[in-house]
């Protein structure tokens, strides 16, 4: 008995039930959140690296599920994000209207499907299983995007399909070359030959499309901006992380042999461009949700900018994990808050938000706190992430990377303070439609979680580095007392 | 080669011939109606002959039954579609090549 399979399977059980439950979604969701929370806690208590094959079929035939530090951080974050987003969605997709509203009826099964896909992606080390997982996520994500704009969803689907093909192409080469698709086995066998390098390049290309890394991000802003708020929260929070995590597993574990420093630097460079491009685009947006969506494009950049830093000094791996988690939570909070704000505002533009800080202080607070994390200001998970990454960059002499991250933070401040300032402006207090408490609480709780993440940095970083792949710099945590002592001795 | 094998070879040859005739007809006949003619007759005869050859080759009743089903299905399909196609080909003039 292990939480690893249950974390994937339980949401599927709930998906089946939700298809049969009709108006009982509320109870189902409560049950789901309780179950998943318990399983997540269980997962966090496992020793990092705990793994087992599904059904007892050994590798290379079977599928291995594994709880490494990255998964032990991401899966609970998914539980938090998805759970709270679900509470919010209970109002937007009120179960009572399941008989008359297609989106309501479809949302809940898709929601559980996405939840399962995210957990499955973070927990498995099997490249082919990851393909199926990617497609699970794609289906749910595109369908949710279609609830906002069919056009954007169609574009998303086509691009996602192409991405999957490239990924699968790589998997085919790897399977044929090595006779296994398991990352842990590949880590010991992979060689830096042409087929492997090509496979890595193809898979990375396909995954970058799904992770929406500049310049393959084109599908993201329209889809994420148009979707209903809870859907956007899940899309930006969960789905793009899947592609990212698989890329990490390839580059630093499975195919690390073929991951040349040049390749890592190319990815890092693209990440840097993504930060700058996404931020500048976000600054230009007039619509609030488009702004938040472009912010995702920029924030994805950080994840890849960290790639060339992983193997060097510092704690880039922890920073990377932190950023993935902090962005997931904060971005979900921001989309949910933005959804509430737009419901109260006169229109979709940022200029329509005037006076909302007075009318809905809690929601604007949630938006603000999420913004703090996304800008990387203290105290927040986003800060911890950026801090560790900048620290690692400077320790490795990568001044440009550090500069880009710092400038990215400033640009984020430029675009994120704009809606906040407008919300603070105006003398009129707009009339705000009544909202259910849980709808207000969800973004606030997420934003607070993003904030609190900044306080738990030490233990969480330890969690993240547990079971990290061998390519990650394993430096013993410097015992501070010693360093202080030596420093003061030197001073004397 | 045994007699059976000669028979199989002959059947196969004939079958392929009918197939080819059907294809050529489809390709060379001037209008849709006559092409339909070529299609529905020739290739089903071809299939029948090939099927017979294969059935003889396997020499098993079960396989033969399966093959018979295949053939019957093909004929049935051809018949049904030909009828519909014939109906609608009357008002068919697709402007685009």
């Amino acid at each position, binding site marked *: 008995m292990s939480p690893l399979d249950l974390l994937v399977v339980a949401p599927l059980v709930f998906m089946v039930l939700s298809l049969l439950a009709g108006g009982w979604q509320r109870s189902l969701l409560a049950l789901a959140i309780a179950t998943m929370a318990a399983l997540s806690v269980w997962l966090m208590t496992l020793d990092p690296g705990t793994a087992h094959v599904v059904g007892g079929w050994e590798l290379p035939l079977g599928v291995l599920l594994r709880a490494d530090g990255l998964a032990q951080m991401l899966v609970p974050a998914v539980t938090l994000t998805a759970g709270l987003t679900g509470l919010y969605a209970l109002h937007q997709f009120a179960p009572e209207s399941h008989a008359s509203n297609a989106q309501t009826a479809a949302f809940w099964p898709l929601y559980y499907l996405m939840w399962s896909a995210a957990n499955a992606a973070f927990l498995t080390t099997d490249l082919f299983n990851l393909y199926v997982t990617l497609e699970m996520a794609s289906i749910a994500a595109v369908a949710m995007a279609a609830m906002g704009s069919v056009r954007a969803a169609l574009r998303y689907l086509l691009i996602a399909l192409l991405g999957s093909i490239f990924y699968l192409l790589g998997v085919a080469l790897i399977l044929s070359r090595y006779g296994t698709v398991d990352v842990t086995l590949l880590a010991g066998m992979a060689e830096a030959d042409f087929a492997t390098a090509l496979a890595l390049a193809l898979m990375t290309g396909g995954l970058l499309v799904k992770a929406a890394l500049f310049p393959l991000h084109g599908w993201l802003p329209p889809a994420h901006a148009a979707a209903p708020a809870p859907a956007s929260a899940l899309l930006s929070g969960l789905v793009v992380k899947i592609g990212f995590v698989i890329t990490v597993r390839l580059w630093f574990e499975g195919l690390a042999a073929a991951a040349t420093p040049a390749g890592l630097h190319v990815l890092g460079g693209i990440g840097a461009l993504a930060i700058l491009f996404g931020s500048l685009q976000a600054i230009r947006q007039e619509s609030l949700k488009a702004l938040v969506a472009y912010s995702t494009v920029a924030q994805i950049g950080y994840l890849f900018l960290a790639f060339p830093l992983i193997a060097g000094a510092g704690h880039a791996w922890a920073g990377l994990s932190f950023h993935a988690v902090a962005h997931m939570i904060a971005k979900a909070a921001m989309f949910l808050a933005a959804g509430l704000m737009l419901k109260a505002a006169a229109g979709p533009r940022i200029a329509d938000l005037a006076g909302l800080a007075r009318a809905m202080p809690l929601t604007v607070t949630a938006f603000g706190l999420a913004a703090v994390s996304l800008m990387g*200001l203290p105290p927040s998970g986003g800060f911890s992430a950026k801090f560790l990454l900048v620290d690692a960059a400077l320790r490795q002499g990568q001044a440009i990377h550090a500069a880009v991250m710092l400038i990215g933070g400033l640009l984020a401040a430029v675009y994120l303070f704009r809606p906040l300032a407008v919300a*603070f402006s105006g003398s009129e207090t707009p009339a705000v439609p009544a909202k259910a408490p849980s709808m207000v609480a969800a973004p606030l709780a997420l934003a607070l979680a993003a904030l609190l993440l900044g306080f738990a940095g030490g233990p969480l970083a330890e969690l993240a580095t547990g079971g990290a792949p061998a390519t990650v710099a394993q430096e013993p945590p410097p015992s501070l007392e010693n360093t202080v002592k030596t420093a003061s001795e030197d001073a004397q | 080669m045994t007699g059976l094998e000669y028979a199989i070879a002959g059947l196969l040859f004939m079958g392929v011939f009918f197939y080819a005739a059907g294809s050529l007809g489809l390709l060379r006949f001037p209008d849709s109606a006559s092409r339909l003619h070529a299609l529905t007759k020739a290739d089903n005869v071809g299939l029948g002959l090939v099927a017979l050859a294969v059935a003889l080759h396997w020499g098993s009743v079960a396989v033969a039954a399966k093959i018979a089903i295949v053939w019957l299905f093909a004929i049935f399909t051809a018949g049904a579609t030909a009828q519909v196609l014939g109906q609608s080909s009357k008002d068919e003039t697709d402007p685009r090549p």
Partner: protein
Amino acid sequence: MTAFLPLALLTLPLVAALISFAMPEARAVWRDASNILFALVKLALVGFLLLQAQGGVDFEWRYEFLPGHDFVLRVDAIALLFVTLSTFLWLIATIYAIAYFERGPNLARFFGFFNLCVLSATGVAISGTAITFFLFYELLTLATWPLVVHKGDEKSLTAGRVYLTYTLAGSAAFLAGILWLKALVGPLEFAAPPDLSPVPTLTLILIFVLLIGGLGVKAALLPFHGWLPQAMAAPAPVSALLHAVAVVKAGAYGILRVVHDIYGAGTVADLGLGLPLAFLASATILYGSLRAVMQNDIKKRLAYSTVSQVSYIVLGASLAGPIAAVGALVHLVHQGIMKITLFMCAGALANRLHIKAVTELDGAGRLMPVTMASFTIGALGMIGVPPVAGFISKWYLGSGGLEAGDAWVIAVLAGSSLLNSAYFLPLLYRAWLLPPQGDHAPVAELTGGWNRMLVLPAAVTALASLGAGLFASFPFSPLEWVSLIVDAGYLR
């Protein structure tokens, strides 16, 4: 147990902030009461710490907030100086703000951020490492922004934008500087200064420029001062707090820490950085004064005066030698109580008589004698007239300049005093010696319940600044305390 005392210093304003946020506007009385109560409790705590610290006890609390990075709170003598100032002025400013706003809109928000501001200032004061300092420094930016844009009009929004642009860019530079230095020499503990000898000189200079550039923004050093006059769009209590304790002081205090506790005054001088910094400070002093002369708006004039006066601290910090250090530190306190007096008076004038421009001041002394008397004390102190506190600071700065062999400092001080007179004396002349314009009746300053609290706090701080000058050589006076610090070798 005592290790948690530094934490308690932060917890008190935090709890006050949370209570303020949570309390509905209708419960304003409770909010006001709790704010004052917490300020009093904190004052008592500070008193206790003062007694302890006199015996040479330092309090420290540390926690590894990220791998390899400790969060250190350390209450030493210098920190206590700043903490005492901020705690005392917090109480005063809170009382004043309650009277100033009466029952205006958005006060829950206002007092919440006000308290967060105090929290950050306290944190800045008791930070034990450069990184801890940065955390609070950045938090300060975030907490003050809502105060700056509090009014929500076009002017405040612009001011908020300008403020953020300057301060966030500054923090980014500061962060880059400390992380860079940390990458080279290990943790930057103020109590255990790092060994800089292995670092190349050019790098050290570059990092110094980053650090001072980052801190100079909040300290309103010359090229980075632009935000401060704009921030006058904020309500008077905010200006009072910003100028006297929170923002500019944090910058100046940071420069003190960098020069003395990270680099060490000797190293700064060896690197040839002291003199340029002193020149920059001097230029700021003169430039700020010149600009102040040209302002008609009272608050703007005071703002430029702050630009000038804060640089005294920087000047003192940049001159090697204990006397200048005493001048710098003591001015940190003196400028605070004097400047808060002036701003509270300006606020009272604007509130009661709607006087905002210098040219409207005619006869104000007759209409609001108590207020104008306080204002006069503050202004004379700024000019450096004995026995008001300002004189003491300037005396020590001048002596420090002589001690360091930089006699030109005297000329700067003299020039600045002249300019100070040029912008303060006409004001006093109008207020006391010219007849009132229009038909204003004298204001009942000291009657009417809370109304008097608009006037009394300024009177208290005015008396304090007088006392700080008069009783400069008595125990527990700022000067004595500072001398104690310097003698104890806290500043290198």
